[in-house]
């Protein structure tokens, strides 16, 4: 299991241009697979345009206590990109006026940002309907100073969305590191204790499933039933909804695909599973992503590839919802990850 980010070890794929080159190479360069642009042109969906904004997703920094093998952020303890309070204030100004009904904080481990609690307190008072924090669970058990996060989340009505790749220890630890499964189970129990995930509880606890390897996620509803049954029977844990998310070929997952000889097969699998109905529901059509340094992207994946929005308003300080609504969405071959099968987004399937 890696302990350092690709960036820290100076890996080629830490450079976004190298990733984009790779995503246009092999079967795409040889014409065996169509470019994403050509594929959505065939189904009459190019250029991809935003619908009305529903979700503002803010990445408050790439620092994380884990170094997951599949991480598209290339997050880890060595990443120093952290959103400042000044940028958070600029985000708050937008949150107060936006038409978006959902605020979605992500990272890294967002809780590791030193101004995280300040930001949550301010943002939760800004009248957003659904306030999501994406928590990796282990952070809650990582250090005493995080032990009270469940109570803190409950106090501010935060909707917790947490990753758990499988309901068995082996698969979870292989993807996320030794000890992650047991620590995640403890964290889930602590969330349940304050009321998260209980049937009819307003304290929402959803889980995210990412495949632990070069394959696509199975049926979301069937997997949710398997997760619910196993977590309840083995640990007495409850949660609300399972979101299945396809791994996109970016950063560490891309590195894994190449190193394991799975890149070409995985891209074929994504293209074969292309679903035009998923294209119309992809999250970049209702989401804007803000990076730790305040730049705007069509999604968190484009953020990690350095593909800023194609708009005059490129930074949160220049935010204009109506101007941003006129942009075309920036695409590349990684987008096949969100249009495969039932589609994939930070809210699970879309089609």
């Amino acid at each position, binding site marked *: 299991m890696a302990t350092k980010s690709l960036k820290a070890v100076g890996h080629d794929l830490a450079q976004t241009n190298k990733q984009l080159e790779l995503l246009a190479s092999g079967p795409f360069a040889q014409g065996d697979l169509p470019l994403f642009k050509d594929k959505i042109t065939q189904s009459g969906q190019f250029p991809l345009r935003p619908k009305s904004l529903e979700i503002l997703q803010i990445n408050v920094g790439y620092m994380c206590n884990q170094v997951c093998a599949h991480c598209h952020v290339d997050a880890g303890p060595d990443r120093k990109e952290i959103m400042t309070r000044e940028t958070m204030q600029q985000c708050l100004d937008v949150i107060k006026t936006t038409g978006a009904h959902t605020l979605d904080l992500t990272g890294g481990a967002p809780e590791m940002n030193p101004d995280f609690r300040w930001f949550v307190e301010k943002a939760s008072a800004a009248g957003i309907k659904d306030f999501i924090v994406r928590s990796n669970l282990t952070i809650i058990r990582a250090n005493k100073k995080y032990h009270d996060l469940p109570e803190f989340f409950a106090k501010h009505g935060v909707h917790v969305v947490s990753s758990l790749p*499988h*309901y*068995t220890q*082996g*698969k979870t630890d292989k993807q996320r590191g030794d000890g992650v499964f047991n620590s995640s189970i403890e964290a889930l129990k602590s969330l349940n204790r304050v009321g998260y995930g209980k049937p009819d509880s307003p304290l929402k606890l959803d889980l995210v*499933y990412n*495949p632990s*390897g070069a*394959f*696509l*996620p*199975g*049926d979301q509803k*069937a*997997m949710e039933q*398997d*997760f619910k049954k196993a977590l309840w029977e083995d640990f007495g844990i409850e949660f609300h909804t399972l979101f299945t998310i396809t791994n996109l070929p970016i950063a560490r997952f891309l590195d894994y695909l190449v190193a394991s000889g799975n890149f070409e*097969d995985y891209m*074929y699998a994504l293209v*074969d599973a292309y679903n035009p109905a998923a294209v119309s529901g992809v999250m970049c059509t209702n989401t804007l992503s803000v990076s730790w340094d305040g730049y705007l992207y069509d999604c968190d994946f484009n953020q990690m590839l350095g593909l800023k929005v194609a708009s005059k308003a490129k930074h949160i300080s220049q935010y204009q919802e109506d101007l941003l609504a006129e942009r075309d969405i920036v695409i590349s071959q990684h987008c096949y990850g969100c249009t495969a099968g039932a589609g994939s987004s930070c809210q699970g399937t879309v089609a």
Partner: protein
Amino acid sequence: MDNNYYDPADLRKFGKISDWSPELGEKFFDYYNSVFKEGALSAREKSLIALAVAHVVKCPYCIDAYTKDGLQKGITKEEMMEAVHAGAAIESGATLVHGVQMMNKYNKLSM
């Protein structure tokens, strides 16, 4: 054409069998896809049956396909290996039960 009988890349060309017989190909794939839908058996259970049969008929394409399908459905490696043993047990049992025929013949021919 390559100098080998099996090429992993041929699996994704499976659909091409319809090119030379569209009507039968279409009927087959309709049937195939219907079989693996949720029914009285779950899609998960059918995937494990398919994996066991894939081993018994020794189809490398099917083994690749249903190992991947199992992973996609969250099936564990322990479940997959038990399914392979279920197939192997029937296969070896099918051989061994013929031992009764051998015994019958032996007894009939012996004084």
